[in-house]
């Protein structure tokens, strides 16, 4: 198992309510998004069953941050060997769910 950490600065502070999407099953992953006072940064922690893919994770996470520029959030990922495309879709689903749940609450 590998534990990877990423941080992206200068995002837009993004309001929402803690959200979990996906399932930690073979070829899949679960993504937890929580609010965090990080001065506009987005912190991501990944636990993955597949070792040696840190550069690909870095690329997928950079693309995600470029798409949403979501700041003041903490993302935690548990992965069981999902492909980069699945990871990207889940991350999009997670941030959209986080924002949508925030709108229901207010």
């Amino acid at each position, binding site marked *: 198992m590998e534990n990877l950490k990423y941080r992206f600065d200068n995002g837009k502070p993004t309001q929402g309510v803690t959200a979990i999407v996906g399932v*930690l099953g073979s070829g899949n992953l679960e993504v937890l998004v929580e609010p965090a006072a990080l001065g506009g940064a987005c912190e991501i922690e990944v636990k993955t069953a597949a070792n040696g893919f840190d550069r690909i994770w870095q690329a997928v996470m950079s693309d995600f941050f470029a798409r949403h520029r979501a700041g003041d959030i903490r993302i935690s990922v548990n992965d069981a060997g999902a492909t980069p495309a699945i990871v990207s879709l889940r991350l999009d689903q997670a941030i959209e769910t986080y924002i949508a749940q925030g709108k229901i609450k207010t």
Partner: protein
Amino acid sequence: MTRSYYESSARARIAGLLDEGSFHEWLPAADRLTSPHLAALEQPAAFDDGVIVGRGGIAGKQIFFAAQEGGFMGGAVGEVHGAKIVGMLERAVCDHPAAVLLLLETGGVRLQEANAGLIAVSEVMRAILSARAAGVPVIVAIGGQYGCFGGMGIASRCASAIIISEEGRLGLSGPEVIETVRGVEEYDSRDRALVWRTVGGKHRYLLGECDTIVPDSVEAFRHAITASIDNGDDWSLAALEREHQMLAERVQRFGACKDGRDIWRELGWADPDAIAMLDNDEFIAAAQGRRAKDK
């Protein structure tokens, strides 16, 4: 729109079953109550350890629930997973909700957690009986991809009622386990028709182990759960003795049968092979007077 229960995740099932806005989760994912055993084995562990527990409303009635996620390790019961279910059931003994709902999808004990998982399952059984003894009906729903097997198959039969879909499966040893232990000549786990006429929803309904059979939709499960809450729970000695008598007669009557079809024939089905093709309503109508409970 009808949503398939079989295809849904545990969270989607709960969301579809509960009254809107009534969902409240205990020990949610953000609490990160993960399995210490999987961490020791260097395996990623789900934030909720594969089970969602909490309270909510169904048709305005307050219920407590546990929903197992089959996608995470086949819904297998680990120490934390089991403790969450037990804690919820013990709270039901104190708080007396209208019912406890268990959405089971599990292969049984999580082998990585060995004895801790076995103990967890036995604690779940005891907690189910404690809740019933306190007057809280415990309703089990089975309709997921992984069925309900192993110790949780026993636990489900400790409950007040079981609701199953045709796609649902209920048993003790799962098909792959039987094949591994006894050989493919004894049981071919890839023979899907054989699997379904041994552990499938229709067979379990005919044998009297499941009280209700529903089509594969979250909405159908919701209707059946509502009806089951209204039915309450017969927890009398007379009911237990009736059940034991039924089981004794069942062994006597069907003990020599080699196949589900033999049992169905004995139950009065002239064309047992046609059962698989009947839709849910046709099947329920045709099954009247032809279940093991009916004699």
